[in-house]
Each structure stands twice: as structure tokens, then as C-alpha cells.
């Protein structure tokens, strides 16, 4: 039994040795190079040596999922013209499994490009209403007690096209501005204890060191003080540059924009600072002309990622799969309808079910080839139910731009083609 494989190994070894001898010492690296290229598929991977270890891994060349470039509400998506107008990119959530987003596919939104920062030169200043203004290096922050947490991050502009007429688009077009990572860093409260916050401090300005100098006011609520983190880690390695390398603020459950990236400064104050991003932008205009301000929490929301927009399915069994999340805590229930909301069935929640984190849900289903309208709705631990589009628009109108969280409808046409609709 053992002779045959050994014989093959021996013959391969001799063949390889022969080629090295034949081509001389200068070509010694050749067999190694060939082995490294062997991710090219072979007819029988059992009959060819596989590739060697490498310093930094890459996905299989068969996997082509990409982020999708975008330029704002109503603008066409894609990478055709990668100009300063292309200021975001969306995660391909239709192709992902479980809840964690690979760092390379985490959505992006930046306001004047991704800065190139040498972590050895980066500093964080904490000052304002504190007893001891301090400057920290990244390495110093990494010496303090660390915490890790798996949580979602969603741009409050995610699904902004929901405020307009329904477009025939993919779930990535509509819902791509959200991702989930394991975030690692030091608790904000640890740093605030270190600088000694004065009692009149109720707000904190967070400022990034990008070319926009993005700044946001953070209310020092109990939730913020308990949960806010200054992060240096994402999914086990350093933050990606697009995610704020080397430091970012992370406020679980809060709208993406306030999770300031490339963090360089925290200033404690006694009132909001009224920056451009919390007045001119990231406020929600209502039908009466007034606007909501400091709408920081992302309310409960869910979406079916399979089957979803522009996909094509065949009759037969499919597991309906999707994501549900709430900035107020855990998702406690997800229900799915295949008849446009007339009847609902409870979906299975896949562990882990974490607070302020994407939760994967699933429901096996047999499609009979007739028109169907798929919907999901979720409830969070506060009892809040995801609203219908009709109910949301009744209160907020259609000029809000941000914080669209209505129930999503996908229509499956008799030919199996799936379309984004309002039902």
C-alpha cells in the first residue's frame, strides 16, 4: 500500500532534481516559483504538488467578489470613473457568509481620500475640559488594557435610494454601506480616567487627520462611556487604511460618520461643537422643513441577501438568508414573508447573536415558479419593530437622505429574475 505513493514522490523528486542539475545553480529557484504559481487549477490536484507557504495570504483566484464604487444618492455605481466623486464603496453582502466582513471588503466612506499615515509619527491628543491634557502614541495605547468586540458599522446613508423611486439594483447597491468586524482597542473610559474629565464635560469633539479633518461631536452618554473604544485592531490585524489606520473611534450602534477615522484629537466640552457634518450633513429633513439632529443610533433593520436584487433563481429549494441588526442591542426576532407581507414565518437566528452586531438569519423555502415577494422584518431587544416603508415615509417624508430602515421587498418574477420593489 505504501509503495505506490512513495514511488511517485521519489520519481517527482528525481525529476525535479534533474531539472535543477540540467539548468544549473542559477535556476535553482525555478521549481519553487512553479510551485507558488500552482494555484492555477489542475485537472487532478491530488497528482500535482500544491503551492508553498507564503508571507501574506490571498483568496482563491476563483473568488471575484469586489466592493462597488459609489458617488452618492442617485449616482450610478461602479468603478468606471474612479475620481474624487467616487467617495464610497459598498460591501458585496450578497456573496458573504456568516456575519464577519473580510477587512478587504469592508465598506468605505471618506471625505477627502484615505490618508497615508506612519503609525510611529501618529499621535492622539486629549484635551479641553480635562485635568491633565495628554498626548499618546499608538504604541502607548496598545499597552493599556484592551477590549475586543464584534459589531456592525453602517453608514447612515446606507439604503439612501430607499427614499426615492425603486430602482432595479442589487442588494450591494442598496445595502453595501455596512460591514461587521471584530474591533480591538482601548476603552474610551480608560483614557478619560487617565486625563481626568471635569464634571462639566458633556460632549467630546473627535477629529480625524485626513484631508477633510473630519470632526464630530459625541455626547458623553452612559452608553458612550460604557462602550466607546479607540481602536487599532480590525479582525485580528491592524486597522485597514480605509478604516482609519492607525486609530479610529468606534461607537457601537452609532451611524458610521461619527466613528471618526485616523483619530488625532479628542476635545472635551460642555456643548456640541456644531460641525459641518452634524448640521449641513447627517441631519434628516422632514416634510415640515424641520430636521432631526444628532440621530446617532442606527435603528433596527434587516435585509434578505439571498435571493436578492438582479439575481436569477430556479424553481426548487433555496435557503432564504439575510442579515438583521440594531444599534440599540440584540436582534430578538426575524420574520420572513414570501407573499409581500400577508403572512410571516419565524426565521432561524444563527449564533452568535450579539448586541449591535449583524445577525445571520435563514429560512429554507421551496420556490414553485410563481411570482413571489420576499420580505424580512426584525425586532430588537427594546421591542422596536422594523417599520414598513409606508409607515416610515408617513412620518419622515422622502427628503431625509439618511437613516432609511424600512422593510425591503424583492419580487421574484415567474422567470426567476429578482427585482427591488416597494410592496
Amino acid at each position: 500500500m505504501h509503495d505506490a505513493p512513495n514511488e511517485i514522490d521519489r520519481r517527482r523528486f528525481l525529476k525535479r532534481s534533474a531539472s535543477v542539475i540540467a539548468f544549473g545553480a542559477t535556476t535553482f529557484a525555478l521549481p519553487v516559483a512553479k510551485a507558488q504559481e500552482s494555484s492555477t487549477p489542475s485537472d487532478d490536484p491530488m497528482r500535482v504538488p500544491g503551492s508553498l507557504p507564503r508571507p501574506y495570504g490571498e483568496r482563491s483566484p476563483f473568488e471575484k467578489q469586489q466592493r462597488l464604487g459609489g458617488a452618492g444618492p442617485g449616482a450610478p455605481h461602479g468603478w468606471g470613473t474612479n475620481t474624487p466623486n467616487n467617495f464610497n464603496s459598498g460591501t458585496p453582502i450578497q456573496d458573504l457568509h456568516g456575519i464577519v466582513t473580510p477587512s478587504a471588503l469592508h465598506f468605505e466612506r471618506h471625505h477627502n481620500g484615505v490618508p497615508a499615515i506612519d503609525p510611529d509619527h501618529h499621535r492622539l491628543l486629549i484635551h479641553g475640559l480635562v485635568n491633565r491634557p495628554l498626548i499618546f502614541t499608538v504604541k502607548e495605547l496598545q499597552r493599556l488594557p484592551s477590549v475586543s468586540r464584534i459589531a456592525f458599522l453602517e453608514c447612515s446613508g446606507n439604503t439612501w435610494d430607499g427614499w426615492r423611486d425603486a430602482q432595479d439594483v442589487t442588494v450591494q447597491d442598496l445595502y453595501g454601506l455596512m460591514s461587521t468586524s471584530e474591533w480591538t482597542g482601548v476603552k474610551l473610559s480608560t483614557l478619560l480616567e487617565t486625563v481626568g474629565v471635569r464634571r462639566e464635560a458633556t460632549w467630546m469633539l473627535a477629529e480625524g487627520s485626513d484631508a477633510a479633518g473630519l470632526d464630530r461631536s459625541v455626547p458623553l452618554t452612559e452608553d458612550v462611556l460604557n462602550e466607546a473604544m479607540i481602536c487599532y485592531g480590525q479582525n485580528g490585524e491592524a486597522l485597514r487604511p480605509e478604516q482609519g489606520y492607525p486609530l479610529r473611534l468606534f461607537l457601537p450602534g452609532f451611524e458610521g460618520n461619527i466613528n471618526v477615522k485616523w483619530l488625532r484629537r479628542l476635545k472635551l466640552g460642555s456643548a456640541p461643537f456644531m460641525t459641518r457634518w452634524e448640521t449641513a450633513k447627517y441631519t434628516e429633513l422632514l416634510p415640515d422643513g424641520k430636521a432631526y439632529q444628532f440621530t446617532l443610533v442606527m435603528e433596527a433593520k434587516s435585509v434578505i441577501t439571498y435571493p436578492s436584487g438582479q439575481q436569477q433563481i430556479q424553481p426548487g429549494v433555496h435557503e432564504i438568508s439575510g442579515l438583521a441588526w440594531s444599534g440599540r442591542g440584540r436582534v430578538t426576532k426575524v420574520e420572513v414573508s414570501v407573499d409581500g407581507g400577508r403572512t410571516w414565518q419565524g426565521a432561524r437566528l444563527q449564533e452568535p447573536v450579539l448586541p449591535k452586531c449583524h445577525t445571520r438569519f435563514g429560512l429554507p423555502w421551496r420556490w414553485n415558479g410563481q411570482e413571489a415577494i420576499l420580505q424580512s422584518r426584525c425586532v430588537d431587544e427594546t421591542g422596536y419593530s422594523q417599520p414598513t416603508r409606508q409607515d416610515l415615509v408617513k412620518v419622515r417624508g422622502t427628503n431625509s437622505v439618511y437613516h432609511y430602515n424600512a422593510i425591503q421587498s424583492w419580487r421574484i418574477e415567474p422567470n426567476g429574475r429578482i427585482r427591488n420593489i416597494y410592496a
Partner: protein
Amino acid sequence: MDGYGTSMPKRFLLCVGISAIALGCVLPGWSADENAAGYGIGKAATDEEIRAWNIDVSSTGEGLPPGQGTAKQGTQVFAEKCAACHGPTGTEGPKDRLVGGRNTLTTQKPIRTIGSYWPYATTLYDYINRAMPFYAPQSLSPDEIYSVVAWLLFQNQIIAQDIVIDAQTLPKIQMPNRDGFIPDPRPDVQ
């Protein structure tokens, strides 16, 4: 707008207190303050260092530097540094429209501009100083910024052309949509 977080300080102190107790278990006998010093991490920031980093301008005008400008002086600054993206009169684009749009917020096509939407004039200084022009942020002098802020306020019919904008006058400008914002009332949909 005055109702933000008035109950926070007490809760904040409570939280710090609880944390101090938790830390006390690890480092017995130390007060919260001593604990903090106990980490021995971080360098004391000098006044000079803080001045260099402290670029924000608050809604009360704290942080505005010396300098001044008028709309007349701002005409040239805007034409040279801003018009390429925002249009010759601040209305043409292609980037954000800055002028006009009054009385459109309740329509199907609201036009959110400095004049129609922005609640504080100080935000103009904070934002232009840190982020504009887009291709060369932080390249304008305080006089240039005050001038272009004056020009934007004049174009939006908020001030007269000869008004001098500086650290004293800017925080006193009453913006048309100053009372247009309400603190987050959600959950608002059931």
C-alpha cells in the same frame, strides 16, 4: 437646542465612580485619580502643542483666530479658490450648492445651502479652515477665510457687503435656519 445632555454630568460621574471601584479591585487603595496616574502612559501636552492642534471653532466662536474680511475682499478669493467646484456665484456646482434655496425645505426638491439650511455661521469658518479648498486643504489664511465667509453670507443675503467679519462679529450672525433643528426624538415610527 438647549436640551442636550443636561442630565449627563451626574451619570458621567457615576460611571467614573463605578470604573474607579472596578479598578480599585486590581490596584487596591488607589483613588481614581491615582489609578490614572498609575498607568504612567501618555505625555503631558504643553500649551504650545495644544495650540497647534486645537483647530476647531465652536458655535460660540471659541477658537476663531485674529484676522478679518469683507464680502468685497471675498469676491476674489471665491473666484480663485472656490468657483471651479461651486460655480461663479456659488449656485452652479458641480459640487455642493452654497447659495440660495430659501423657502425650499418643505418642497419635493429641497435645496440645502448655507443660506437655507446651515444653523451656525461659525461652522463655515471651522469647515473651510480644515477642509477647503478640496484640492489644497488648510492653505487659506485667516483673512482669506473671513473674506470668503463674508462673501458667502452676503450672497445668501444674510449680511451687507461692507460688514467686517472677524472673531467678534461671526458668532453673532443669526442664520435663517438657526431654529430648524430638533434633537433626535426617535423611535418616531411604529
